[in-house]
Structure formats: C-alpha cells, structure tokens
C-alpha cells in the first residue's frame, strides 16, 4: 500500500521536476551566460571535472549583461509593452463579444444548451493554426471581406487589414473566444432566476438588476475568462506572425526570432525569464480566483 502510494506520487512528480522545473533553472542559468560561437552557443558551460574551482569560475562568469541589454535596447521593452497592451485590449474586446453570447446561452431553453455548448467547444477542438489561417484568406487585400465590402459599395478600394494590429486583435478575439464564453456561461447558468425576480420585486429596473445582481454573481467567471485570455496572449507567437505586420512586436515573436534567426540563446533566455516574471502576478491572481470560486461553491 505504502509502496504503491509512493509510486503514484513519485512518478508524475519526478517527471514534472525533470521536464518542467529543471528546464526553468537551465533557462535562468543561460540567461546569465554570454553568447559564444560554439556548440552550445553560449559560455560558460558547466565543467564538473574541474571540481570546486570549476564551480567557482562558472559562477564568477555569470552576469546580468543580457538583462541590461534588454533594458538598453528599446526593441525589447517596447515589445514587452506592446504585448501587454495588445493582451489587455484584446482581453477587453473578447469580454465584450463573449458576454452577450454567454448570457444568451444561459437564458436559452435547457434543451438547447448542450447543443450550444457543443457549438462553442467544437472550435476549441479544431486546430488553432487553422483557425488563425482562416482569417488570412478573409482579411487579405483581395480577400473575402474586402471583396464583399467593395461589392456592396461601402468602400471603393480594398482596406489594408491583414498584417496590421487590427488583424491581430480579430485573430485573438476569434481564437480565444471559447475560453471567455465557457467560464462566464458556467457562472451565469448556475444563477437562480429568482434572484433577479427578487431584485425587481425590491424595486430594481431590469437594467439595474443586471448590473447589481447578474454581473456581480458572474464575477468569478468573468475574472477567470479574462485571465485565461490575458496570460497566454502575452506570449502569443502564431497570431502576430501570421496576421500581424512588421510593426507588430509581440514578445513571443521577438523571443522566437532571437532564438531561431539570431541564434542568441542567452538573450532569448533572458526574454523568457522577464516574460515569466511579468506573468507571475497574473498567474497567481488567477489561481487565487479559482480557489475562491471553489470555496464559493462549497
């Protein structure tokens, strides 16, 4: 019994330590190293054969140079700033689009709901890459949207949408929409309709009952949905590289280019560490929200 118990804990635990925790320590270490023309392309490397002296030299050669570089070169901090801005704005836009849908779903007859749920989940199971790709054909200069608008006569010449930040916002709202709808729907669906009736009975108008009762009760769902969009969008790579333009500098793309094009591993690692530090606070807030929600259920 005790051996089995140990096995059940140790195997997944050890796996995560080896393939999740240790890699972070390695990133941290490399972010403090210098770029070198070598294999692997950084220095110093760990040399255990040199004994304690080796360890000491190893640590003495580590420095914060890459972080200073990130600070001085405005490409990086501008990218961080623009990632956070894009993530915040698109989170807000996703909320605006998702809430009415979730609200409509929660109000629909119970017999429709499983089907509506399935319709929200289905895109979630469909390839992310393909969903982003589908907008390339729609938004391009001779794409579906422009042809349609020209045909209806609203515009004379095609709008330039693809490869701009607008395309990035559309892509993010589109692909992350299910993440926002599902938690909000879940919290609205549980809501007791008699609460709204009680509010109206006590003198609320429909509108004020919505703001004073519905929205506060859906609070945890809204917060969860916002974090589920905001956190991963910060590190998004596919959307800015397919839909964004040369002016779209999101940090995920910068990290990718630094690694694959410039082969500067130490700087890429430093970028990853800074991104992680930026995301630590929202991740912790997200987990606290989830805990509170669980407590609220109990």
């Amino acid at each position, binding site marked *: 019994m005790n051996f*089995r118990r140990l096995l*059940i*804990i140790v195997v*997944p635990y050890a*796996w*995560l330590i080896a393939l*999740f*925790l*240790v*890699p972070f320590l*390695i990133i941290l270490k490399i972010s403090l190293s210098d770029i070198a023309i070598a294999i692997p392309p950084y220095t110093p490397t760990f040399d255990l054969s040199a004994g304690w002296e080796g360890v000491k030299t190893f640590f003495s050669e580590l420095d914060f140079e890459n972080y200073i570089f990130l600070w001085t070169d405005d490409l990086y901090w501008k990218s961080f700033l623009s990632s956070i801005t894009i993530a915040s704005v698109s989170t807000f836009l996703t909320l605006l689009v998702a809430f*009415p*849908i979730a609200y*409509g779903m*929660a*109000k*629909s007859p119970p017999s429709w709901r499983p*089907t*509506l749920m*399935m319709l929200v989940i*289905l*895109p979630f*199971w469909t390839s*992310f*890459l*393909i969903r982003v*790709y*589908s907008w*390339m*054909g*729609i938004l*391009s200069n*001779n*794409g*579906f949207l422009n042809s349609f608008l020209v045909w209806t006569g609203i515009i004379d010449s095609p709008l330039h949408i693809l490869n701009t930040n607008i395309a990035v916002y559309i892509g993010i709202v*589109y692909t992350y*929409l299910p993440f926002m709808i599902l938690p909000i729907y879940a919290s*609205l669906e549980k*809501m007791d*309709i008699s609460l*709204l009736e009680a509010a109206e009975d006590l003198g609320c108008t429909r509108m004020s009952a919505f703001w004073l009762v519905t929205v506060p009760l859906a609070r945890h769902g809204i917060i969860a949905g916002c*974090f589920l969009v905001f*956190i991963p969008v*910060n*590190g*998004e*790579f*596919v959307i800015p*590289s397919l839909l964004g333009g040369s002016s779209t500098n999101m940090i*995920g793309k910068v*990290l*990718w280019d630094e*690694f694959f094009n410039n082969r500067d591993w130490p700087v890429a*690692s430093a970028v*990853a560490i800074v*991104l*992680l530090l930026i*995301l630590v606070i929202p*991740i912790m807030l*997200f987990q606290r929200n989830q805990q509170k929600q669980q407590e609220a259920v109990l």
Partner: protein
Amino acid sequence: MNGRPLSWFNVTSLTLGFAFLYLPMLILVIYSFNASKLVTVWAGFSTKWYVALIHDQQFLDAAWVTLRVAVASSTLATILGTMAAYALTRFSRFAGRTVFSGMIYAPLVMPDVIIGLSLLLLFISIGLDRGIFTIILAHTTFSMCYVAIVVSSRLQSFDKSLEEAALDLGCTPFDAFKSVTLPIIAPAVISGWLLAFTLSLDDLVIASFVTGPSSTTLPIKIFSSIRLGVNPEINALSTILIAIVAVGVITASLVSKRTIAKREREALEAN
C-alpha cells in the same frame, strides 16, 4: 438561469456570435473546393487540391510523424496525468504537495514559447538527440497537466465510500482502483486522452523548438507553407481536419445526450 424568454438582444447576440465562430471555417471549407488557386475568385467546384494533397509526400510524412507523436504522448500523458490526479485528490498531505499542484496548473497558462525554449535547452544540456522522441517527451509534459485537471475534477466529485466499500468487501487497494475507481472515472480518462491527443496534433511552437531536422510535424509543415500566404492545398487539409473534429465532437455529444436521456428515463421509471 431559467424561465425567462429570450429577448431579441439575446437572439441577435447568439446568432452573430455563432456566425463569427463558424463563418471563417465555413469559407475555408468552401474555398477548398475552388478550382482556382486565387482565394476570392470562384472558378467552379473541384477536388483537385485534395488529389494534390494526397500525392504530396511531404504532407503525408508529416502527418505520419504527427500521428505517432500524438498517440504516444497522449497515452503517456493519460497514465501520468491520472496518477497525478489521484495523488492530488486522494493523498491530502505529502511533502512538496504545493509545488506539485503548482506544476500541474502552471503549464495551462504558460506561454508555449517559454515551455518550448526551456525544454530545448534541457535536451541540449543533457545531450539528447532531437527528433520524434523529444517531441513526445515535450508533449507528454504539458498535456499530462490537462489530463490531471480533467481527471481530478471527476475524482473530486467521486463518492469516496465506493472505494471504501470495495476495500470492505475484500479488495486490495489496487484491486479496488482497477474494478471500481477506474471503470467509474473512465469517461474522464478518455476525454483526458482525447484532449491530450488534440493538443499534441495542434502544437506548433513547442514542437518547433524541440524537433530535429528529420522530424517535421504537420503543424510545422502547415506553418511553413502558410507563412507566405493562402495556399489551397492547406484549405483542403484544413477541411479534412475540421471534418474529423466535427464528426468526433458531434458523435460524442449525441452519444452522451442519449445516455443521459436514457438514465433519466430509467431513474424516473424506478421511482
């Protein structure tokens, strides 16, 4: 939230919302049957892009790599994730439990670029040759966390006295898990496997970091072909993938709907 009629506002937002979700994919599917290479010009119905696709050896190779990676990593992830879920829900106290649950939840929101980069640096520093094997390791790592969450939410709602009843009737703990717990949580384990499988099929960023020169997965292949613009062969491929997912999800939801309806009817008859 029951009992209120849908207002025109609700109907409009539902209609527009689902149109927004489905129109882009619908357009993609329609244009995969377009005879013309140009996106907007409809030049008649044709299946030539499908024919081209199945003769494209590179795509077939990539699909084969992806399938093997997905099957292997989702199976491994299901085993590890179920163990992790069991450890988290059944053993309330053990050393490092907080770190453990933190590591289970973190990959859910961790940007792919960070996971990919960190795993690549690990594989390099221990001198592991990159290829299918490293992709499987990477995919197993992040998808086991999803499996753990799906399975542990089922385990939490699971009546613990069922396991105790099995022990009481003479089962060893392992026997009780095999003959009582596992059959009951099986639907969650299966959906965990499916989720892990889909995540693996879908992953571009992590695979790009940890792959070697010889193992190109389907997303990597798709990404390199669409970087430069719309490609009708990809439209055809997308249509196939969308069709597979749609058939799978619709079948699953119909089956579960029928099972639930049957159970409700039977429960009603019993009382």
